[in-house]
C-alpha cells in the first residue's frame, strides 16, 4: 500500500527505510597526455546493494578509493547514479528531479568529516542552524531562535552561543554544530561520512557518545562511514566492507568482527594495531597484503581482490563471485573460497 503525506513523500508500507539495488556510479575521466584519446571510466561504485531499517545503524568500512564516500553522496542524492535503484521507503529516488527530491532531502541528512570547511565562516551558528530550519519549513510556533537554542542544547553546546561564529569554536564543538544542523530537519536517517576522524581521541569519544544518545533517543537510522574499525564496531549494528567499488562482505557486527569470511575482511581486521597486546591479549597473526589497491579505471576481471589474495585461483579471474550467504557463518560474502578464519574453526572443534 502506498500513501503520500502532505510533504509530498510517497511511502510504501512495509518497505525498508533505505534500499540500494545494484547501484553504480561511473565517473568519466580524460585519457592521459595531450594526444590521449578515448574516454575512460572510473568505476567508483560498481554494483552496491544494501538495506537500512528504521533506527538501524549500518557501518561502511574500507580503504581509500573503495567507494564508501561516493556511496554516501549517492544515498543523499548529491550524485545521480549511473545505474541502479536508490529506494527511500520503497520509492526510487535515483533519478528524481530536484523539485521532487526536496522533501526527501529533509529526511535524509548528511554529517561531514571536516568541521572546518563544512560550516560557512561568515554565518553565525544561529544562522547556520536556523537556515536549515527555514529551508525545510521546520520553524516551529515558538520561533526560530528558541528551536535553534534547543538544538544547540541537545548537541551539548551552550545555547547562549547562537550568535558566535564557527572560528570561535573548537573542532569538536564545530562537529556538534554540524550535527545540530542535520538534526534541525528532524531526519529519519543520517549519513555520517567520517564524522569523528578529524578529531582528537578524547574529543572523538565525546562526539561518539553524543551520536549514540541521539540514535537511542530520537530513533534515527545511521549510515556510518569510517576507516577506523574500532569506531565502527562501537557504533554500528551491522557492518559492510567495501573494496574497489564493490561490497565484499556484510553482516551483523559481532559475526563480521569475530568470524569474518572474506580474505580481505580478515586482512583488514588483522592489520588494525590492537592495544590489547600490552594487556596480555596474545598478539594476533597479521596478514600481510602485498601491493596496492588496483586502479578503479581498469579493475581486475572476476573478483577484484584476487590480485592481492592468497587464496586466488583461476576461477577468481574468470567468474565474479556474488554476495551470498554461505553454509557456515552469519555474514553474506562475495568470495569463491570464503571460510571463517582458521583459529575460529579450531576453537569450534575444541
Amino acid at each position: 500500500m502506498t500513501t503520500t503525506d502532505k510533504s509530498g513523500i510517497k511511502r510504501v508500507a512495509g518497505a525498508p527505510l533505505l534500499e540500494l539495488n545494484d547501484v553504480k556510479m561511473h565517473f568519466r575521466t580524460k585519457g592521459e597526455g595531450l594526444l590521449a584519446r578515448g574516454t575512460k571510466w572510473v568505476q567508483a561504485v560498481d554494483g552496491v546493494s544494501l538495506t537500512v531499517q528504521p533506527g538501524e545503524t549500518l557501518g561502511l568500512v574500507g580503504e581509500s578509493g573503495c567507494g564508501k564516500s561516493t556511496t554516501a553522496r549517492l544515498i543523499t542524492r548529491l550524485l545521480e547514479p549511473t545505474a541502479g535503484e536508490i529506494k527511500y521507503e520503497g520509492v526510487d529516488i535515483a533519478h528524481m528531479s530536484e523539485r521532487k527530491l526536496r522533501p526527501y532531502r529533509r529526511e535524509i541528512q548528511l554529517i561531514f568529516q571536516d568541521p572546518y570547511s563544512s560550516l560557512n565562516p561568515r554565518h553565525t551558528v544561529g544562522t547556520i542552524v536556523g537556515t536549515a530550519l527555514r529551508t525545510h519549513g521546520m520553524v516551529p510556533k515558538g520561533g526560530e531562535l528558541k528551536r535553534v537554542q534547543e538544538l544547540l542544547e541537545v548537541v551539548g553546546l551552550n545555547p547562549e552561543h547562537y550568535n558566535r561564529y564557527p572560528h570561535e569554536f573548537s573542532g569538536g564543538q564545530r562537529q556538534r554544530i554540524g550535527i545540530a544542523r542535520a538534526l534541525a530537519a528532524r531526519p529519519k536517517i543520517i549519513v555520517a561520512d567520517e564524522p569523528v576522524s578529524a578529531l582528537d581521541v578524547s574529543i572523538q569519544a565525546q562526539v561518539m557518545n553524543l551520536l549514540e544518545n541521539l540514535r537511542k533517543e530520537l530513533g534515527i537510522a545511521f549510515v556510518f562511514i569510517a576507516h577506523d574499525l574500532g569506531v565502527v564496531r562501537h557504533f554500528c549494528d551491522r557492518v559492510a566492507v567495501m573494496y574497489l567499488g564493490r561490497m565484499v562482505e556484510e553482516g551483523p557486527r559481532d559475526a563480521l568482527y569475530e568470524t569474518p569470511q572474506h580474505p580481505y575482511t580478515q586482512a583488514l581486521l588483522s592489520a588494525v594495531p590492537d592495544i590489547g597486546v600490552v594487556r596480555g591479549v596474545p598478539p594476533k597473526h597479521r596478514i600481510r597484503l602485498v601491493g596496492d589497491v588496483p586502479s578503479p579505471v581498469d579493475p581486475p576481471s572476476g573478483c577484484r581482490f584476487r590480485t592481492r589474495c592468497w587464496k586466488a585461483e583461476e576461477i577468481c579471474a574468470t567468474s565474479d563471485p556474488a554476495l551470498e550467504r554461505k553454509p557456515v557463518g552469519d555474514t553474506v560474502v562475495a568470495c569463491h573460497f570464503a571460510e571463517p578464519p582458521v583459529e575460529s574453526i579450531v576453537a569450534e572443534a575444541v
Partner: protein
Amino acid sequence: MTDQTVRAPQTVTRTPRARAEGEEAYLEVTDLHVQFPTADGKVQAVQGLSYALPLRRTLAIVGESGSGKSVSSMAILGLHDRKSTWISGSIKVGGKEVVGMSEKDLMSYRGADAAMIFQDPQSSLHPFFTIGAQITESYRAHHNVSKRAAKARAVDMLGRVGIPNPSRRVDQYPHEFSGGMRQRAMIAMALVNDPKLLIADEPTTALDVTVQAQILDLIADLQRDFGSAVVFITHDLGVVAEIADDILVMYGGNAVEHGPVEKILGSPLHPYSWGLLESIPAVSGTPGPLHPIPGSPPSLLAMPSGCAFHPRCEFRDRVGGDLCRTLKPELIPRTADQGRTSRCHLKEPDKVFETEVLPRLP
C-alpha cells in the same frame, strides 16, 4: 583445491624486543622550552620537557593536537625559525648540542646524525623532481661521491624499503607513486645517510590500515638493521602498543607520564592517560561504553595554573589543599616502581587505576 601451504596467508607476528637497561642515551633532551611570540601573546608550546633515548630503542610520543609533541621534535632537528622562536634548554644528539647550533653545523648534522619522516608524503616530496634526484641530493650533501654512485645508492635504498623494480622507479616522479610507496620513498630518503636518530612524525596517519601495517613492519625491520634510535610521534595507542619500547605521554606542552610501553598502556598512573584509554573503542573483546575526558585541551596562550590537566580531571577533588590548581607536580616515580614517572599529585594512583579505572575500560 590446492594444498594448504598455498592457501595460507602470509602472516607476521611482532615479537617484543629484549630490554637492554642502563644503555647510554643517544638523544638527551633536558628542560626544553619552545615559545613562539605572537600578537596575542606568547605561545608556550613546550614547557620544560626532559627525556633520554638510547640507540636501538623506540620511544613513542603520544598526545593530542597542541600537546607539543611535534614542536619538540622539530626542535631536535633545529627546524624552527630562529627569528620567530625562542628555545631554551638542551638537546644533545650523540654528544652534540643542537640548541644554538649554527646554521652551517645544522646543515651537516641534519640527515647525517638525525633525520625525520613527515606525516604527509604528498607535500614533503617535491613534485618537480624525480624520487631518485631527491634521494641523491640528500646523499651527496653528506658524501663526496659521483652522481652515478649516488644514484646506485638511491636504487639500493629504494630496494631496501620494499619498492619493487627500484632501478625503474628511481626515475619516476612522486605523482607516479601511491601513498604507501611515497611514504617508503620518504623513509629511503631519511635513511640514505645512516642517521643514528630517526624521528617519525605521524608517519602512518595518512595511510590506510593495511598500508600502515606494511610501513610499521618496515620501520621496525630497518631499525633492527641500522641500530638507530627512533622517536615515533603518534596519537594512535594501538600503533604505540605494536611498535614502541617506551612511551612519553604529553599534555599541554609537557610530559605527564613516561615509562615502558607495557606499563604505561597496561597500568597507567596519570588521569590523562586513563582518559585516553577510556576514549578508544577496541576492535576485540566485549564492546563497552566510552568515558571521554570532559572539556577540551588548554590554549597554549593561557595555560591553567598548577597542573595543566586539572580543569578536565575528575580526580582533582581527591587531592587536598587545592594543590592541583596551585602547584605544578613534578615528573617523578609515584609508586614503588622506579622505572616510570608521572606528573600528578594523586596518592596511590596504582590502586585508583586497579579499583576504579580498569573495570570501566572499553
